[in-house]
C-alpha cells in the first residue's frame, strides 16, 4: 500500500495532535536493543527500560549461537556499545515500569529507577570497589554457578559499566566507598521516579527457562551433575565461572560422556506446556557440538522424540553435528535420570525406539534442555498496559498473519520472545518490525 508523502497540513496536524516523538522499549535484550536502535536511527528518542543492571539479555549469557557457532558475546557487545553511545537512546537500567496511561501518540509512563547506590555519571567501571568488598554471593548472571560481590557488575561487558550494590547482601562496611577514587558510591541513594510521555511502546521482555525441577524424575536439584542448558552455557563460556572448562559440578572432573535431554517443559500436556518451544532442538544440538569441541573424545548423546531443524542452515547444522562431530542422536524421550550409588555415574532410562529396546545409558553429566517460558512478571507488566496474554502466558498479538508484532492495544507493540519462543535472528527481525510500527505512529501516520 503506497502512503502519500506527508503534506504540510498533515505535519501541522501532527504538531497540533501532539504525537510524542519518543518511544518506550521495555526490555534490553537483543530484540529490545534492535527496536531501540531502529527507532533512534530515524531521529526519534527512545527510553530503553531494563530491569537488570545491564542490557544484553539472555544472549549475553550464551557461549555460541546456532547455526553458525558465532561467539555470542563477540557479536553482541558491539551492539551494547552502539546502544549505550546513541544520543537518541536513554538507557534506564535497573529500572521497572510502574504505570502506563493514555493512548497511542500520547502515553504517560512512570518508571522507577531503582537505587544502585552508585552514581552512574561518576562510576568509571574500574572495579576497585568490588575488590574490597568482603561479601560474596551467587551470581545471577552465572545462574548461581559463580560468585559476585555485593557491589558488582554481572559480566565484564555490562552496559552501562556502572557498578551496582545489592543492598540485600551489603553489610554496609563502606570499604567500597573508601576504595572509590571518584567518590561514585552513595549509600544513601534512593529510588528515583521518572515520568515522561511516549507515543509508542514496545514490549521486549524476553523469556525465562521452564523450571526443570518440576520434573522430579529427571533429578535436577537432587543430583549435582544434572544441570540445565543455561548453566551449561556458563560452564563452557570462557568468561564463565570455570573459565570455559566444562567440568562436573560435583567433583570438578571433565565429563567423558554427556547426555542431553530434549522436550523438557515443552510439548508436555501434563505440565500445561503443550506447545513446541521452537529453539530447544537447535540449541540442544549446538550444546552437543560444543561438548565435542571441548573434548573430542567425549561422547555426546541427544535424547529426543523429534528433531526440529526448520530454519536457514538448521538441517545442515544437524547433519554436520551427526557426521562431522559425531554427536549421537538417540530416538527416545528420557524417562528417568538416577545416580548409581556404586559407580557414581548418571544413568538415563530410555527406550531406543528404533530397536524397541528399553535400556540404561550411563553418562558423567546430564544437560536438560528446557523449553522457554514467558517471564514471571510479564502478566503484571501487561496488566499495567491493558493488553492481554494468551493461555500460554505470552503477549497476545492482534493478528497472527498481518499484525504479528501488534498487540490489541493501538500504540503498543511486542517483539522477541515476549510473544512466543524464537531464536536470535527472529527476535531481531521482530525488533525491527516493532520499531517500524512504532515510528509510523511517531511520525504522525496514525496508529497502524
Amino acid at each position, binding site marked *: 500500500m503506497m502512503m502519500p508523502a506527508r503534506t504540510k497540513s498533515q505535519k501541522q496536524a501532527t504538531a497540533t495532535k501532539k504525537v510524542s516523538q519518543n518511544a518506550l522499549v521495555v526490555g534490553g535484550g537483543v530484540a529490545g536493543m534492535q527496536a531501540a536502535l531502529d527507532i533512534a536511527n530515524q531521529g526519534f528518542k527512545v527510553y530503553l527500560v531494563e530491569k537488570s543492571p545491564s542490557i544484553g539479555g539472555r544472549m549475553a549469557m550464551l557461549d555460541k549461537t546456532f547455526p553458525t557457532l558465532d561467539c555470542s558475546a563477540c557479536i553482541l557487545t558491539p551492539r551494547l556499545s552502539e546502544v549505550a553511545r546513541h544520543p537518541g537512546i536513554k538507557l534506564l537500567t535497573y529500572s521497572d515500569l510502574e504505570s502506563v496511561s493514555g493512548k497511542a501518540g500520547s502515553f504517560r509512563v512512570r518508571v522507577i529507577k531503582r537505587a544502585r547506590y552508585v552514581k552512574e555519571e561518576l562510576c568509571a567501571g574500574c572495579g576497585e570497589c568490588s575488590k574490597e568488598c568482603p561479601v560474596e554471593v551467587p551470581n545471577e548472571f552465572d545462574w548461581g554457578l559463580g560468585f559476585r560481590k555485593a557491589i558488582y557488575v554481572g559480566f565484564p561487558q555490562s552496559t552501562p559499566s556502572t557498578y551496582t550494590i545489592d543492598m540485600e547482601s551489603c553489610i554496609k562496611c563502606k570499604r567500597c566507598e573508601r576504595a572509590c577514587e571518584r567518590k561514585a558510591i552513595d549509600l544513601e541513594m534512593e529510588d528515583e521516579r521518572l515520568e515522561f510521555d511516549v507515543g509508542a511502546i514496545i514490549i521486549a521482555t524476553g523469556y525465562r527457562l521452564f523450571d526443570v525441577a518440576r520434573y522430579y*524424575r529427571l533429578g535436577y536439584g537432587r543430583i549435582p551433575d544434572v544441570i540445565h542448558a543455561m548453566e551449561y552455557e556458563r560452564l563452557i563460556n570462557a568468561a564463565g565461572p570455570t573459565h570455559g572448562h566444562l567440568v562436573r559440578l560435583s567433583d570438578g572432573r571433565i565429563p567423558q560422556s554427556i547426555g542431553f535431554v530434549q*522436550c523438557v517443559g515443552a*510439548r*508436555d*500436556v*501434563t505440565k500445561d506446556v503443550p506447545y513446541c518451544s521452537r529453539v530447544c532442538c537447535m540449541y540442544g544440538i549446538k550444546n552437543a557440538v560444543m561438548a565435542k569441541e571441548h573434548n573430542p573424545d567425549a561422547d555426546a548423546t541427544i535424547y529426543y*522424540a*523429534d528433531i526440529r531443524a526448520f530454519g536457514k542452515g538448521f538441517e545442515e547444522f544437524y547433519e554436520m553435528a551427526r557426521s562431522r562431530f559425531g554427536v549421537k542422536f538417540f*530416538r*527416545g*524421550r*528420557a*524417562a*528417568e535420570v538416577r545416580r548409581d550409588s556404586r559407580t557414581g555415574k548418571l544413568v538415563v*532410562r*530410555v*527406550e*531406543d*525406539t528404533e530397536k*524397541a529396546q*528399553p535400556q540404561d545409558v550411563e553418562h558423567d553429566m546430564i544437560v536438560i534442555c528446557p523449553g522457554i517460558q514467558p517471564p514471571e512478571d510479564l502478566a503484571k507488566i501487561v496488566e499495567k498496559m491493558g493488553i492481554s496474554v494468551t493461555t500460554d502466558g505470552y503477549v497476545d498479538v492482534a493478528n497472527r498473519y498481518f499484525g504479528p508484532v501488534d498487540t490489541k492495544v493501538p500504540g503498543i507493540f511486542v517483539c522477541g520472545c515476549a510473544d512466543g519462543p524464537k531464536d536470535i535472528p527472529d527476535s531481531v527481525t521482530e525488533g525491527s518490525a516493532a520499531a517500524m510500527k512504532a515510528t509510523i505512529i511517531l511520525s504522525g501516520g496514525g496508529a497502524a
Partner: protein
Amino acid sequence: MSEPEHGPEKDVEYHPNSRFSQEIAAEPGGEYIRKCIQCGLCTASCMVANYTDKYRPRRIIQKILLGEREQVLASELPWLCMTCRLCEERCQEGVSLAEIFHVVRDIAAREGRVPKVFKDTVNQVLKDGWLLKDAFSDFIQDDRTDLGLNPEVNFDGEFVKKVKKRYFEQGDKEEVKDE
C-alpha cells in the same frame, strides 16, 4: 463392530488413522490414542518392558494405530499391563496407555478372547462374590479372633449372580466358554 469383510491380511491399514484406532478412540479411556508420537517414554518407564523381551507398550499402541486389529486382539501382550500407570503419569502427549489396554481387553473379551487366568478368576468372583472364599479356612478365622477381629467376613454372594446374568451370559459374552 462388524467383522472385516476381507481376510485379516488384506484388512491391515498402514496409516495412523486406522479404523481400529478409531474404534479404540470411541471408547472411554481411548480418546487420545492418536496423540501418540511413539517417543518411547512409556516403554522406558515400564517395569514389564524392563523385565521381558516381548512387551513394549509403545509397540502395542503402534500396532493399534496401524490397524493391526486381529494381531492385537489375539495377543496376550495387552493383558500383561500391570496398570501401574507410570506411563500415563509421564506421557507428554496425554495418552492413557493403561486405559487403552483396558479398552482392548474389553473388546477382546467381547469376542471371547480372554487369557485363562483372567477367566478363572472372574468366574471365581462371580461364583462367590469375592475372591478368597476357598482360602478362608478355620485357621484364618481363629487368627482373626486372636487379632480382635470379627471371625466372619460377611461378603455377599447374591449380587454377583445378577452381575453374571446381566453381563456374562449373553451369547458370545459367555465367560465360562473355553477357546
